[in-house]
């Protein structure tokens, strides 16, 4: 092919490439970057759908940090983060057990993974029924151990643990499979060397398995924090009003309520920016302390 022909081809390549990425660029401009900037603008107005947009600067943000319900939603969301270490601890143990080469692993993995592939809404409804005060399965089981029935979803002390239990149950499949994949990458020779040194099971777990799983633990914590900060569906379905004394409402629930039930679109946008900022800071923080504990 002649030189001219080649350069014409690379000219054409440029235009074809732009055509190929056009849908993604349109999505970026119309549905991602544009709306994001627009929400930053309306977060500085007092807009409530009907009236005019009056520019009020940072007033929404100042109102927010003085708002009791905002801080309660914030505290509840922070509380939900407890579910992450609980879920990771259980799934790490499960993965180590499943990695011993005993039969039936495929079947166990299948059972544990089942909640992951089920509909979130259907599962939340199922757990709402299981948490039923009078006839729910959980209280039935507890009564076998002589424990008095708990009014899970209508008691301000129990509603958050109830939502955490559901979250841990639902998420175990993913983290177990991730841990299992990571375990299979640990060289067998490390354990053989430890065996020669006469190391017992616990010290092998503490000095080989745990450290070599830290990169995966790190990944699961980062994604877990991002997801948990945005928890919403479970709360909106199980406690449509945000729980007794607003004890289950999350930040996203608060944003949704302010924006779509009270029509305070400007204020809700400010809250959503606050949430975005918080997720960003937490993620940066996670990466910053990574060096201290993640095995390189």
């Amino acid at each position, binding site marked *: 092919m002649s030189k001219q022909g080649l350069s014409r081809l690379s000219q*054409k390549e440029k235009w074809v490439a732009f055509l190929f*990425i056009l849908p993604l660029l349109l999505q970026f401009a119309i549905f991602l970057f544009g*709306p994001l900037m627009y929400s930053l603008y309306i977060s500085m107005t007092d807009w409530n759908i009907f009236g005019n947009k009056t520019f009020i600067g940072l007033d929404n943000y100042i109102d927010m940090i003085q708002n009791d319900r905002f801080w309660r939603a914030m505290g509840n969301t922070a509380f939900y983060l407890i579910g992450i270490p609980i879920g990771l601890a259980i799934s790490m143990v499960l993965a180590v057990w499943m990695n011993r080469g005993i039969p039936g692993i495929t079947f*166990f993995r299948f059972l544990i993974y089942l*909640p992951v592939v089920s509909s979130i809404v259907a599962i939340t409804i*199922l757990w709402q029924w299981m948490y*039923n005060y009078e006839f729910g399965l959980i209280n039935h089981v507890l009564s076998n151990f002589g424990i008095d029935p708990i009014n899970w979803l209508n008691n301000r002390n129990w509603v958050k643990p109830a939502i955490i239990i559901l979250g841990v149950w639902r998420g175990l499949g993913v983290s177990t499979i991730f841990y299992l*994949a990571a375990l299979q990458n640990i060289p067998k020779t490390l354990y053989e060397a430890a065996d020669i040194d006469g190391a017992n099971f616990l010290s092998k777990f503490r000095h080989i398995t745990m450290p070599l799983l830290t990169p995966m633990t790190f990944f699961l914590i980062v994604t877990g924090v991002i997801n948990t900060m945005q928890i919403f569906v479970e709360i909106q379905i199980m406690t449509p009003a945000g729980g007794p004394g607003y004890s289950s409402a999350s930040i*996203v629930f608060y944003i949704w309520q302010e924006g779509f039930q009270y029509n305070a679109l400007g204020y809700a946008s400010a809250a959503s920016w606050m949430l975005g900022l918080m997720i960003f800071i937490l993620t940066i923080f996670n990466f910053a302390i990574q060096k201290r504990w993640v095995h390189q």
Partner: protein
Amino acid sequence: MKNDTNVKEELNKRTSDDSGKKKSLRKSTSKKIADGIIFTLLSIFSISMVLPFVWMISTSLKTPGQTRTSTPEWIPDPIIWTKYVEIWEKAPLLTGFMNSTMYAVIVLSLGTFFTALGAFAFAKLKFPGREKLFLALLGTMMIPFPALMIPHYILFVNLGWIDSLLPLIIPAMLGNVFMMFFLRQFMNGISDEIIEAAKIDGSGFFGIFWKIMLPMIKPAIAAQVILWFMNVWNDYVGPLIYLHSPTNQTLPLMIANFNAYYDIQNDFPLIMAASLVSMIPLLIVFFAFQRHFVESMNYAGVKG
């Protein structure tokens, strides 16, 4: 040399020694006992993980009266199937199925096509600003959905799209940045020589994409499409905000409203039957593509 063989012989003698045998034998029996204990623990644990589903099925086969017992009744007596007929009469579930299916089919087919096309351009074509544009797109993965839901709502009110599937379909069908990133990584692993050869043969860029690239990245696409299908089928927040009339709702929203309505009447069998039916498409996809599921998890895990 001679010393070496001596040492080997010595070693052989030692390992065939009685005490050595006993030790390894003891070790393997203790391992067997440990394996047995762990097998039992795993069985108990994984069975208790699925007990909620068993309870769900069991409840759906009862009358509301049968659910009001002081001890759990796992096998209903008598077994009542009528709730599975009732649900279709009490809510436009079939319409919900149609709406959800339309949402999923359009988004997944067009979205996968645009995503793969974009990934191909970013991986194999040369154009100015390629890296910068790629990073800008990647950055959008960090935007949490709650930050977009209010401006989106305002946009769709102005477009007159509220109470239709358009706000769900149009933005999503333009592509999926996470999947694009994943496919680009995958295509980077494919040699450029194939592309160059095809160019010289006179294939157009789209021909190269369609006839050469697409067949090669099929497994990667399959894994991602399954995850995407799950997200679309599970989508709740979008429908909650945009869809108001019952006949326009997708399945999860319909089921949630169904729940809110019949929960007050304590008709748990009806609610469980409807929820169970709404999960069937997800379970079918899971059973059919189980292998791909695990693979896609592994991909994401190892790469992450």
